């Protein structure tokens, strides 16, 4: 037994190191703070977004484009479709006309400035339509399931089976005499929503068996109210992401249709129209084609970049892959 050993005769023991007494209060190492604002997906996402330069770059670009679209008069003195002189056809840049002239002798810069509003309006109208239809179809199909799901999903499949630009080509050919911003937006949006509906539906299928849904059912909240108040808001994150990217897609679709000649009539400013018209003089005056292309690509780029950073912020899986 160790106690029986005579300590006076044995070798001196090595000193033991004893850590100084440290009383960290439990609270300080507690990871969950009881007070303070509770965090959720959106607060986390915002904290993530704020730190990313790509977010601020795309936000700044989008703000500039929106500003140009709202107040074109601040950027150019020329009203749209006027002061075009054939003497200036494909002319080089001069004082007050920094980007030169189109084949019809119009100022390229002012056409680009006035085209911003068209692209943005189409983008916003299409996105609103796609979001509304997609959320309605996706929410009812995912939440109610059964025959409702079967019916709504088959309708979605049918609309999905026609590539939306091809469908828009047919609609715009049919409505050749009624071409304007609203009609082209409808033509694009009516066939573009099934992707949104599918994304929301699969997200709702994941969410609808959560405990808070059971709890809401238990306290007697109606099915319809549970869907709109609890399930849809908790499934909307991936829809927000694809909606941002869909806005860019709608702008491209409008430009493509105008390029094909079934888009907007030439009296409405549209980058797609300008690019299509500059096509014939590509060899002699490439600048007339390049500048509207840059404007179009930059706009699309800023919305796609915004969609990408939002996706990274909202999707933990994408965050891990960075």
């Amino acid at each position, binding site marked *: 037994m160790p106690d029986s050993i005579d300590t006076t005769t044995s070798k001196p023991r090595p000193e033991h190191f004893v850590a100084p007494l440290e009383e960290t209060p439990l609270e300080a190492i507690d990871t969950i703070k009881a007070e303070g604002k509770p965090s959720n997906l959106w607060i986390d996402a915002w904290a993530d977004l704020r730190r990313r330069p790509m977010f601020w770059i795309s936000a700044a670009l989008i703000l500039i484009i929106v500003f140009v679209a709202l107040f074109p008069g601040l950027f150019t003195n020329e009203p749209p479709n006027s002061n075009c002189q054939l003497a200036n056809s494909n002319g080089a840049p001069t004082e007050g006309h920094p980007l030169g002239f189109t084949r019809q002798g119009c100022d390229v810069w002012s056409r680009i400035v006035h085209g911003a509003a068209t692209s943005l309006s189409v983008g916003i109208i299409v996105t609103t339509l796609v979001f509304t239809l997609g959320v309605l179809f996706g929410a009812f199909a995912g939440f109610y399931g059964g025959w409702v799901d079967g019916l709504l999903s088959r309708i979605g499949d*049918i609309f999905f089976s026609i590539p939306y630009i091809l469908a828009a080509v047919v609609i715009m050919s049919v409505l050749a005499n009624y071409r304007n911003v609203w009609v082209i937006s409808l033509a694009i949006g009516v066939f573009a929503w099934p992707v949104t509906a599918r994304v929301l539906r699969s997200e709702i299928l994941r969410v609808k068996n959560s405990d808070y849904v059971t709890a809401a059912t238990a306290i007697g909240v109606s099915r319809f109210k549970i869907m709109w108040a609890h399930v849809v808001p908790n499934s909307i994150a991936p829809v927000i992401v694809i909606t941002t990217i869909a806005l*860019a897609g709608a702008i491209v679709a409008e430009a*493509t249709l105008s390029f094909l000649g079934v888009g907007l009539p030439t009296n409405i400013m549209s980058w797609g129209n300008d*690019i299509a018209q500059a096509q014939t003089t590509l060899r002699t005056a490439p600048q007339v084609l390049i500048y509207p292309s840059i404007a179009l690509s930059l706009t699309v780029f800023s919305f*796609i970049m915004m969609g990408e950073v939002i996706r990274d912020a909202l999707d933990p899986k994408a965050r891990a*892959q960075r």
Partner: protein
Amino acid sequence: MLWYTGKRLLQVIPVLLGATFLIYFMVFAMPGDPIAALYGDRPPAPGVIEQIREQYHLNDPFIVQYFYYLAGIFQGDFGVTYSGQSVNDVLARTFPVTIRLALLAIFFEMVAGIFVGLVSGLRKGGIFDATGLGVSLVLISLPIFVIGFVAQYFLGIQLGWFSPTVGAGAPLEDLILPALVLASISFAQIVRLTRSSVIETSGLDFVRTAYSKGLTRRRIVPVHILRNSLIPVVTYLGTDFGTLLVGATVTEGIFNVPGVGRTLYQAILRGEGPTVVSFVTIMVLLYLVVNLLVDLLYAVLDPRIRYA
């Protein structure tokens, strides 16, 4: 597998009916009298009009006309073009060209996209990865006709590396530039898909087991990681086929490729409604068939789908 194939085939039927119905409905809603459009300023005798109306079933109600149209499609009859050629003749002439262009584009985007995606995924966060992601973001943002014109102007006209337009008979070397342009739209998506799939697969247990067995990286990367990462990429080709068809319409228009896309492009430009509809119908049918095949291929590649 048989059961899955049967189920998938049955699912196509309502979609097929619905899609053709939608297209036909849009045409039916077209304003204007088709006979007046046919004869222009000099209307024929009333008897002739009546005969034509009878011949093309124009007096029948909408739903009956739709079934005539559907019956025509199932018999492989897509009608005639504006200039009186049978659509089938035009297809026989133009389809092989488009198939060649599409296959070449798919080849380019698969080889380049999977390579860049694989390297990016294996060296996540490296310089190559960052460059690849940046380039793919820019490519996604560029509409295909912008890429087409820029390529035509700089590579075709300025540098003279490629022929800016495609010659008669569409020889393969002339198709390289249009195919590269067509490939560029989906290239970016394939890079991203492959990259995230490779990152996900690399973290799985069987890859760790392979390393701990002492296998070399040269064997693990192609056999264990790449092969298992390709399933989502293959299915992407199906959904992407629609983009490819629209892209082909624009690309063939720009580079003057004598394919199905250019025929559609010119019909659109000339405002030839019925021809546009015939070709859109054919493209939609093609899209449905390709998606069906890809879904079946998916079930072959991934047994979980078959038994789900």
